[in-house]
């Protein structure tokens, strides 16, 4: 069916746009590859962990930069380091690059520069979060659709064969888009 194709195409386009725009890099692809039937939602789990962590660290840095009695650049550097580690682990390239830029300012103990960098970092993070969430929704939606169709087909053995074809196509497309096929018993 057309909408299925559309959906899948959307998914593929969207995820390649993420790569193109540099929001995610190869590491993210590696992460996707780690998903399988045993850990079908691995990427989502890692991403949600990352979002939490990132928000926390950004908050800490914002607070640190607000200190009137003197900014603790050491703490900021540690936050940056951790953020750099986790963003590179998840493949969030732009966030990671923002961290690298941030680090030079914090090393120079340049408060203004740090504030700007923090803003930039926040922006990159929000962007990443939105994009990834969208991506996840699409992928989840595809899986739902797939499962529905499968169930539907099974419920209707006497139905026309096209649902099977449909399911098969959908399966192919899900896999092609890097998703994994959920098990349906």
């Amino acid at each position, binding site marked *: 069916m057309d909408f299925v194709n559309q959906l899948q195409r959307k998914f593929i386009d969207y995820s390649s746009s993420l790569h193109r725009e540099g929001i995610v890099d190869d590491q993210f692809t590696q992460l996707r590859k780690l998903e399988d039937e045993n*850990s079908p939602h691995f990427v989502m789990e890692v991403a949600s962990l990352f979002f939490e962590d990132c928000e926390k660290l950004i908050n800490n840095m914002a607070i640190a930069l607000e200190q009137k009695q*003197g900014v603790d650049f050491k703490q900021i550097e540690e936050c940056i380091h*951790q953020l750099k*580690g986790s963003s590179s682990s998840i493949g969030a390239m732009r966030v990671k690059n923002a961290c690298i830029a941030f680090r030079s300012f914090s090393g120079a103990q340049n408060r203004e520069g740090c504030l700007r960098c923090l803003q930039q970092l926040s922006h990159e993070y929000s962007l990443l979060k939105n994009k990834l969430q969208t991506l996840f*929704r699409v992928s989840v939606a595809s899986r739902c659709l797939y499962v529905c169709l499968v169930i539907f087909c099974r419920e209707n053995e006497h139905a026309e064969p096209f649902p099977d074809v449909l399911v098969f196509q959908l399966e192919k497309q899900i896999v092609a888009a890097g998703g994994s096929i959920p098990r349906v018993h």
Partner: protein
Amino acid sequence: MTVEQIVSEGKDQFPIGMRVLAVDDDPTCLLLLGTLLRRCQYHVTTTSQAKTALKMLRENKNKFDLVISDVHMPDMDGFKLLEHVGLEMDLPVIMLSANGDTKLVMKGITHGACDYLLKPVRIEELQNIWQHVVRRKKKDRCNSGSKDKPHPDSGEAAGIGNVDNNGKLNKKRKDQNEDEDDERDENGHDNEDPSAQKKPRVVWSVELHRKFVAAVNQLGIDKAVPKKILELMNVEKLTRENVASHLQKFRLYLKRISCVANQQANMAAALGTADSAYLRMGSLNGLGNFHTLAGSDQLHNAAFRSFPPSGVLGRLNTPAGLGIRGLPSPGTIQLGHVQNSGNPTNDLSKLQSFVPGNHNTNILQGMPMSLELDRLQHNKSVGHIGELPTTDSTTVFPGSGSLVDARITGFSSNPLLGVTSNSLMLEGSSQQATSHTSVSAIGFQNGNALSDFTSIAPASNQLQDSKADSQGQASPINCNAGQIIRSAPQEWNAPRKDAPYQSHALINSSIPINSAMIQLGQCLDRNNSIFHRTTDLDSVGPLNFVDPLSIKHSEGDNYIMEPSVIEKEGYLMFQPRPHGSHVPDNTGSLKDLASAMMKQVPTNLSVLLQEGDFGCNGYSLRTSI
């Protein structure tokens, strides 16, 4: 589980099932690492706390084959963990970091890491880490077969009971020349196992280590040979090999410290003593002053008069790769002046601390334990460090940029101890904000007693200015202590044996407390903001799906499914299908099926999709550990 069992059952499958302990405070990285390791078919245990990791390792030595640890962790520095594991359990440890600076890598190696990986870690790299386990086992087996010297201890070794009630292959470092003094190659060849492969592992408890250090100090670091140490220690069931390998590690440790202490010594030397020159110096600030001082020859002489033996300094002068940058050259120049005859060079080693295999102590805390015994042998010129109730869970290394601010000055009288600590602490904390303050004025109120101690303030400052990374900055503190320790006993011998105690007590209190203040602050921040996950599933999800479904079904039968959620997203529009696949009587079963189906998707899918936000509390998360 004995080694043979491990080896035999591992033989068929190894490296599959290799037991790895992964430590990383970053939950994202930890999850990723754990998943990658499982993908390599290792048996993985993860933890975000270094202390938990150590506890687990100590509980059962045989539980793990390999440890992977992050470098930057809030509760304990990765390098410190590395040291502990190397000392106590002798397992291969792989360091992991987002920072791949050469000096960090070097530091990892000197601390005994068998590998250093960069984040983001790739699965290809992890697929080969088993080689480190094999390598170690192989060396042990090899060496045990080809032992060239007859050992009177071999009988002992065979008969060694469990010092720790654990049986595991005793992987010790080799020390072939019993009677040779050595500055030998400390790259750590794996040890021979003189007798059976199955030897119980020796655990160097605090007590044991204390005896060890006492023995070493008694003999003199240069003359400390395993055999004699063993005799002195007089511990049953300890073999020469155990002692030898421990000695090797000890020397490594001392060397590491001494390199840093070396640098600090230069500073300290230049900064002088309790002479008037010193007091003048006390008011000087910063690097500029240091250079000024350096230029003053008179000052040098004054400073060096009562300075600790040159032998020590001379030895310290050998550079070692510890990443200390920015140390002014004047420091080294001054050393030339310090040619006081002194005690043998081994004082340094004797005096410096060594971290015993005791968790939850920072390095300095380790000093009291090791050196307290020395006090009993006060005829030796050994640094004394009193046992102090240092704050728990403080570490010297990590985040210790602030530690650089610790000033250490000596005091002779007890009453001042408290004062000094406080003042030092105050100095330390203010240090963070100010570029430099000198505490020397405070420190030298007691006249002659102070002549032996030098303020390290400017030195610290310099290091801070040089922006060494945190590890680099940490080591100066350690060497400050080492410096002080070294200097103290030279001047304060028998008549004043309590004084060094106090002075060192001072050091001990100042550094850890200082670091504790800062470190705790940071730790607390982290702890407060760490999200403690639960694995509670949010069971709202399925219901959300089921309900709309039931509603929809009442409306019409031709909907395959119409979760309102998906509609919302606008990605799918399920139209009622006019095609023939009409399902007249399947309403009920379809609903059941739908709910069954919902179990296939994340249980809180609806939450995800509706709230549009990840990281919500209900997210089910597999946690390991």
